[in-house]
């Protein structure tokens, strides 16, 4: 109890918790029989997962002619959804890696679930480019390996191949980071379990004992993984933006894309974290661990990144006008006032105007507003990718190829189906692993627990307590 605590520290753990209370509260969702809400949610996601499988089998069986994508709008819902899901994944790495480097304590309440979200979102994202290949049974051609076809190597100059490397690296590194963080907590569950569950968690926890040397190495590993995940996550969305920026299509060929995509990714990812966390904390009864302070911190990130995205939208418009290049000017005129004008205004409203309400502290700390806006932002960020992709291709160089795109039921089912896939994975995760990092929450208890800091602090810190406030 000797750590100095500044008066400005937020309370991040409420309810006068002891270490044992933390273990009880955070392990119990994996030990109780599933609640009715969980069963309903799980059944619903299984139905959507079934829809996904059906639509994918349909696509593979009949070919991607079943999609609404056509010769000129050859990237449409699929790539929109791909970029949307990848963007969502970015918040998990931001919370777990960048906030670890910045020593932000509030990350401990939400990092585990956000990292899980990253992994499931990347799985969903991967489906789209893979099935867009058409002959998906030849998908392994994208990996460079010595083969009997020449050997025919992949094109290392292509941003699409960079994407293959970026996303597979991102997925596997996120998985390692997440699982290594999970091992001590799985050991906690193991030491409470009996019978078959004990056997299962013995296997999953790799024989963790909590030895001081192991903890030291574990912290060293986490810090380096955080250090390399930080440029990794920035590189992933940068490379996704290169898919567009390195092309010669007006409206895509812009140098602002990498930072603009990364900010957008963090923005949409935090919105998804809010959506998930607000439901999770309620259903699993974790309000004392994922507090209003956590939600407010995330809303601050949302208003910041939303504003960055807004500046990027306006910069794009300004630069296209300022360039004096009529094709560029047309591309942006078409984006705002063309056939898909409604998606442009939807994007502007949802991403730039709506999040500005979070300048108000009262609204940042309002659950319903936060939840409502997180949904709005998820929709807005989907519109953003649709605007960039479909609007641009619908009016390309050759007016005779100009066309309009609308999705078929197959594409809509695949997209809705990936939601099923995502929530299917997330709900299983909620049942088998602690959704809040137990060991990390314990390690901040004495500097962020409400019995140690804040107006109701009971445990004496001498001059550092603030009974008088």
């Amino acid at each position, binding site marked *: 109890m000797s750590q100095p605590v500044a008066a400005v520290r937020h309370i991040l753990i409420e309810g006068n918790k002891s270490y044992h209370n933390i273990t009880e509260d955070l392990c119990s969702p994996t030990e109780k029989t599933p609640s009715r809400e969980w069963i309903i949610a799980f059944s619903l996601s299984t139905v959507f997962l079934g829809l996904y499988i059906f639509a994918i089998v349909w696509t593979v069986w009949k070919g991607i002619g079943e999609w609404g994508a056509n010769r000129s709008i050859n990237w449409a819902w699929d790539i929109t959804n791909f970029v949307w899901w990848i963007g969502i994944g970015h918040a998990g790495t931001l919370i777990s890696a960048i906030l670890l480097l910045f020593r932000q304590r509030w990350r401990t309440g939400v990092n585990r679930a956000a990292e899980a979200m990253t992994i499931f979102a990347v799985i969903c994202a991967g489906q789209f480019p893979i099935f867009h290949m058409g002959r998906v049974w030849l998908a392994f051609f994208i990996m460079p390996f010595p083969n009997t076809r020449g050997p025919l190597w992949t094109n290392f100059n292509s941003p699409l191949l960079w994407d293959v*490397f970026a996303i597979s690296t991102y997925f596997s590194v996120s998985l390692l980071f997440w699982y290594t963080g999970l091992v001590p907590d799985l050991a906690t569950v193991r030491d409470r379990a009996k019978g078959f569950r004990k056997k299962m968690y013995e296997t999953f926890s790799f024989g963790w004992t909590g030895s001081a040397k192991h903890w030291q190495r574990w912290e060293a590993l986490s810090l380096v993984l955080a250090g390399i995940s930080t440029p990794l996550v920035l590189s992933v969305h940068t490379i996704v933006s290169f898919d567009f920026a390195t092309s010669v299509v007006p409206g895509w060929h812009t140098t602002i894309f990498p930072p603009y995509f990364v900010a957008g990714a963090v923005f949409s990812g935090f919105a998804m974290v809010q959506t998930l966390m607000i439901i999770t904390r309620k259903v699993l009864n974790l309000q004392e661990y994922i507090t209003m302070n956590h939600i407010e911190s995330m809303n601050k990130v949302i208003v910041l990144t939303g504003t960055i995205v807004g500046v990027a939208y306006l910069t794009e418009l300004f630069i296209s006008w300022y360039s004096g290049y009529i094709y560029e000017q047309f591309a942006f005129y078409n984006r705002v006032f063309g056939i898909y004008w409604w998606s442009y205004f939807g994007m502007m409203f949802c991403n730039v105007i709506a999040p500005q309400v979070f300048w108000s502290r009262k609204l940042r700390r309002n659950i319903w507003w936060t939840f409502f806006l997180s949904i709005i932002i998820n929709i807005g960020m989907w519109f953003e990718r649709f605007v960039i992709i479909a609007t641009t291709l619908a009016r390309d160089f050759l007016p005779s190829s100009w066309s309009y795109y609308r999705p078929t039921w197959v594409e809509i089912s695949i997209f809705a189906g990936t939601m099923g896939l995502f929530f299917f994975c997330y709900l299983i995760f909620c049942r088998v692993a602690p959704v809040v990092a137990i060991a990390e929450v314990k390690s901040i208890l004495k500097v962020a627990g409400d019995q140690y800091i804040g107006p109701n602090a009971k445990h004496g810190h001498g001059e550092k307590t603030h009974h008088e406030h």
Partner: protein
Amino acid sequence: MAAENTKVLYGLYNDEEVLKGAVKAANASHLDIMDVYTPFPVHGLDPILGLKESRLHYLGFIYGATGALFGFLAMTWIFVSDWPTMYGGKPYWSVPAFIPITFEMTVLFAAWGMTITFYTICGMWPGVKAKTLDNRITDDKFCIAFDVTNASDSTVDQLKGFFQNTHAEEVNVKTI
């Protein structure tokens, strides 16, 4: 890690500050601590236990450098010597275009290399049975363990006295 069939005398503490005090007391009376087990990483414990900083990050650097070299040289060999192909009039050895993949390979090798090394040197893999002294160590107990396999009765008594003086909540013996 301890060898097979080690007889361990261990004491459990309720708080990490009491634990740190006990470790300091053990140092003062030159007791040879086998290991300390905690439910979460206790800061400030490593120096008083005499644990040197982990060298894992040096290995991380070596793995990362290996990945960078491997990625860059593989692309160079493929595009310059094995199967030179002209893409868009660019040179065969188009170095700037190799940067993204070189970077990804650096991260990939560093992350996998370090993680595999971490589990190997800690002796942790799926199927390894944990040498757990007490189930509450992953919950809320902080444990100091002494190896008493070959210890005389007087040494054991001395250690028990140490636990009593440092306010251990429980003292037990277990063979792991």
